[in-house]
Structures are given as structure tokens and as C-alpha cells.
């Protein structure tokens, strides 16, 4: 556990607090800035993940063909799909590993935000154990937690309409991001699982901000928005979002 603090948590926590100092004491801005910095730092991994996702997207028409063709022979379907992946040089789990590698950093970022917020007196007292002796850090704590009318240390439900709006943004952006990558499947079971995920995940992440400090919700929202933007540019568009978008005009009939 000490290694976790020493190598990951404490550096992120202190950078977050130093950023708050440099950004005029605005902890909300520091959360946004650090989220962008972490995104930039993890860009090589992220790019690999997105490219892997894009490659998977490109293979979808062929996969769907295979799914139709071998709908009654799962074993053969698996074999053919693996063959297809191999020919295309795509690892189906390629988009997951970069995400897994980045995950400790995101956990540390979550924990840093929670610790830096020091919502209870005990948390504030405990904070001193994690701080460097940098002058900017010493001068910044305890952090002010007001940002755009939100009290970042309070939960979304305690923050009233603004907190609820933030929860909706978190859920909404999560939905958009999921829709962009969720390929339609010819297999009804897979399609059903995917549909459930697309609904459940945003719903869950939309609920969490009501129960967690709004500082975390701000982080989730910013992270999702950056994810959507990078995904848009790397994969070259809205991905599968446009396929099922309710705002999209129906395809012409008779062809």
C-alpha cells in the first residue's frame, strides 16, 4: 500500500493541489486541467486503444456476415472470427489492455480528488501525511471547493439542480461514448447484452454523481467529453452513434 501512495497517489495528489494554486485556487479548474494532462500523458496507450476499436469497427460488416452465416454453429463462428481477426492483424482484446494499464492512474486520480477535497475534518488532518513540502502545496491547502456554483465536496443531490444537471451530463456523455464504440451484432444475445450495457452503464454513472462528491462527477464529465472528442478524431467520426441516432434521417427505401 505504501508503494501505491509513494509512486502513484501522492504525486498525482500533490500535482492536483499545486495546479489548484496556479489556477487561482480553483479546484474545479485543477480537476479539468489534471484530467487533460493525464489524458495527454496516456495518449499513446489511448491511441492504441482507439485504433484497436476502429479496426474492430471496420471488421464489423464481415463479422456480421459470419454471424449470419454460422448462426447455428457457434464453434465454427468462433473459429472463423478468430481467423478473420488474425488475417486483419487485430486483437479483439486489444482495446481492453490499454484501458486496464491506464486504470490505476484513473483510480489514483479519483482517490486524489477525494483526498484533496477533505470533506470531513479527519480527511483534512489525514491529508498532511500525503503532502510534499512544496511551498505551492503548503499555501494551497485546504482547498476551496466552490466551482461554477457547485460545492465540489457535496454530493450531486446536495448540490440541487446544478448537481442533477452534472449527473445528467455524466450519464449523457457516457451514453454517447458507449454508443460510438458499440458495434451492432447480428447475434440477438450479443445485441441484447450490448443494448443492456449501453443503457445500464450510463444510467449507473448518471446515478453515482448524486451520491459522490461533485468534484468526482466533474472529473467523470470532463473525462467522458475528452474521450468523445479524441474518439471522434481518431476513429474519424461518430462511429456507431450515427447508425442508431434518433436524429438521423431514415435511409432511402427501395434499394
Amino acid at each position, binding site marked *: 500500500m505504501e508503494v501505491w501512495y509513494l509512486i502513484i497517489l501522492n504525486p498525482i495528489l500533490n500535482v492536483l493541489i499545486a495546479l489548484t494554486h496556479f489556477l487561482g485556487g480553483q479546484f474545479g479548474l485543477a480537476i479539468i486541467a489534471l484530467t487533460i494532462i493525464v489524458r495527454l500523458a496516456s495518449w499513446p496507450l489511448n491511441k492504441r486503444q482507439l485504433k484497436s476499436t476502429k479496426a474492430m469497427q471496420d471488421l464489423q460488416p464481415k463479422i456480421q456476415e459470419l454471424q449470419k452465416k454460422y448462426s447455428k454453429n457457434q464453434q465454427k463462428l468462433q473459429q472463423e472470427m478468430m481467423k478473420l481477426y488474425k488475417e486483419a492483424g487485430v486483437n479483439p482484446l486489444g482495446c*481492453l489492455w490499454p484501458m486496464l494499464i491506464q*486504470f490505476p492512474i484513473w483510480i489514483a486520480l479519483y*482517490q486524489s480528488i*477525494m483526498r484533496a477535497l477533505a470533506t470531513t475534518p479527519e480527511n483534512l488532518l489525514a491529508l*498532511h501525511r500525503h503532502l510534499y513540502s512544496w511551498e505551492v502545496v503548503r499555501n494551497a491547502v485546504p482547498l476551496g471547493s466552490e466551482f461554477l456554483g457547485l460545492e465540489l465536496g457535496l454530493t450531486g443531490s*446536495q448540490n440541487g439542480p446544478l448537481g442533477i444537471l452534472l449527473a445528467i451530463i455524466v450519464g449523457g456523455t457516457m451514453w454517447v461514448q458507449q454508443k460510438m464504440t458499440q458495434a451492432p451484432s447480428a447475434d440477438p444475445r*450479443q445485441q441484447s447484452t*450490448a443494448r443492456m450495457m449501453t443503457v445500464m452503464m450510463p444510467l449507473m454513472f448518471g446515478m453515482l454523481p*448524486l451520491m459522490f462528491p461533485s468534484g468526482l462527477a466533474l472529473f467523470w464529465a470532463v473525462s467522458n467529453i475528452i474521450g468523445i472528442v479524441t474518439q471522434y478524431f481518431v476513429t474519424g467520426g461518430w462511429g456507431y452513434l450515427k447508425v442508431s441516432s434518433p436524429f438521423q434521417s431514415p435511409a432511402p427505401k427501395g434499394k
Partner: protein
Amino acid sequence: MKQARVFLLVLTILITSVLVSCAPGRGQAAGGWSGTAFHDGIIYSGTQDGRIVAVNATTRDLVWSRPMITEAAGGLGCGPAVVAAAIYTTPVATDGLVYVGTYTAQGGRMYALGMTDGEIIWEYPRGGAYMGAIVGDPVISDDTLYVGSSDGKVHALALSTFTRRWESERLADKLWTSPVVVGDTLYVTTFDGVIYALSAETGATLDRVFELEAGFATSPVVHGRIIYAGSFDGHLYAIDIDSAETVWRFPQGGAAGGWFWADPLVHEGVVYAGSLDGRLYLIDAETGDRVGDFDAGSPFVSSPVIMDDVLIVADQSGDVYGFELSSALQDRAVETVIARLGAEVESPFCASEGFAYIRADNTLYVVDIQARRIDWQSSLNAREEQG
């Protein structure tokens, strides 16, 4: 299908990890660190399960125990729940009443309890309302109680009716320190690094006495016309009230290794200040020069007290030290250890009639200073009390 399963599994692990590492219950719960007060042979303190207790110092019996419960909003789809409030304030016992403030997620309240039976005589605000959650100790002067709260305001209550006399403007994000009353002026330190002077009569802001880049961690301690206050920047400041100038800053060069978190004590020209770097510093109150220091090796979270020319301090690890005020402190660590409580001391404590009354890890320790030992101890856990 296999890929979807793997993805779902990974996702479940990830989400669980996030929830486990960040759930509000983990590391975010308020437990309270109420200190002890001694009045007419009775020890008063708040417990970690949200009760105020009165313990007879002679018979060691629990005189009364009052749960400070509050109604909390339930979770999604749940109705309201009754939960115990956290108690950070040290009870103030005077004139037949015990005053205490509470801290909950919804806010806080000030209570006046009967000294003999713990019955709630007054509460403020009334009718189920809350003020900001209370952390700093209330201060009583004449017929008024002053207390800072997490709404960033100082609240003044008339003791005779326990109704609002005034509330100040919002001075900071939150006020977790105690105000100090000097004549007709109230001095308040804030986490923003400002010392305010307020009118004790009306609550109007008279002056921003002093501004510091870092925040103040301690309440102001006034001695003569000097305010002594510790900061998060690792310095202790002495500020002249009249000129609003820094008289001195300690250490004069680089900062101490930790925050000055505990309120300093000023006695006969010496400032005794414990730091989270594990050192107790003795500072000349006039010049700011170091008179001596003592390295306990564990942070000083609670303030020192003086009784019968003995300086008593307790570090966070639970070691209680006593120093003859004439001693230079250095190299006296071994012979000055009075007791090892083996429990974390994070609460203010008091000393009277030869004994120090210390609450540590929800146990009340009574330390005999002359005999240099724990005289007796009593668990403040509700279940053990009943047993």
C-alpha cells in the same frame, strides 16, 4: 460472446474497484474528536458514536449519556433515517448547562444539555432546521455563545433564550476554528489565511486584520495585543492586533516539517506549539526565537496544557509527556514520558487537580501526573458501558 463476457468481467472489476476505493464511507466518514471538559468533579466528552457523556471522576461511574441523533435523508428510494451526529466540539460546562455542537452531512446544531441529567434544554436552530456543521469549539462570553460553522459564518446565540443574536457575513468556505473574544471584538482565523475582527455586539466585520497566502490551521490565541496562530504553511505567526503587522514568524527561515495544527499555548512569555512534524516548539513570545524543542517522533494534534507548573502534552501515538516548565526540554524524552496510552490522541484534553483527562480512540484515560501512570480508564463505547 466470449469477448462480451470478458468485457463484462473486466468492467465489473473496474467499477467495483472504483466504488471500493472511492465510496463515501471509506475515509470520508466523520467520526468526531471531541475533547474533555472537567467541571465540579464530572468529566464531559463527546464519543465517537455521537453521544455526550458525563463521567464521575471520583466514582468513575457514568452519570449520563445523551445520544445526539439527527434525521438524515435516506438513500435513493429510502425514507429518512436516524443517524448519530459526529461531535468535534469539546463540551463547555457552565452555569448548570453543557454546550455542544454537532456535525452531520445535513449540517449542524448547537445544543444546551442539563448538567445533571443530560436532557436537551435548548437546541439551535429549532424545528428540524440546521446551521452549518460545527467543528470549532463554541466560546462563551457574558451572555452570548459564539461558534463558527461549516457555512463560513460565525453565529452568536443569546444564552438566556438560545436564539440567534446575530450571524456574521460569510467569511470563508467553512469555519472550523473557534473565535476568540477580546473586549467587544471577536477575532476569527480562516482557512483562506485571513484574520477577521468582528463586532461582538452586532457581528459586523470591523476589519480584515491580517492576510496570509496560506490558510490558518489553528484558532487565534490572543495574549496581550498579540494574536498567535498556526498555519498550513508550517509557520506559527505572531500578529500585532493594533498595527496588523507580523511581529514574528516561526521558524524564521524554512517552514517546520508539518502544519501547526493544534492551538498554541502562551504562558509566561513562552509560546508552546506542537506541530504535525512531531516536535513541540518553545518560542519566545516577544522575539519569536526558539527557546527549545522536543522531538516526540509522532505528530502533535492536540494542544498542550499546563497544570501546577507542569506542561502536559500528548502526541498522536498516545504518549503523554510532562515537563517541568523550567526544563529546557531537550534530551528529556525518556524521563518525561508519563504514560503510554497505546491509543491515538487527536482530541483536546484538560487537566485538573493532579489528573489529565484524555479521550483517545473512544476511551477516557485519567492520567495521574505526579504518579506518572494511568490512574484508570473507561471505554466510551455504548455497548461496553451497558455491559
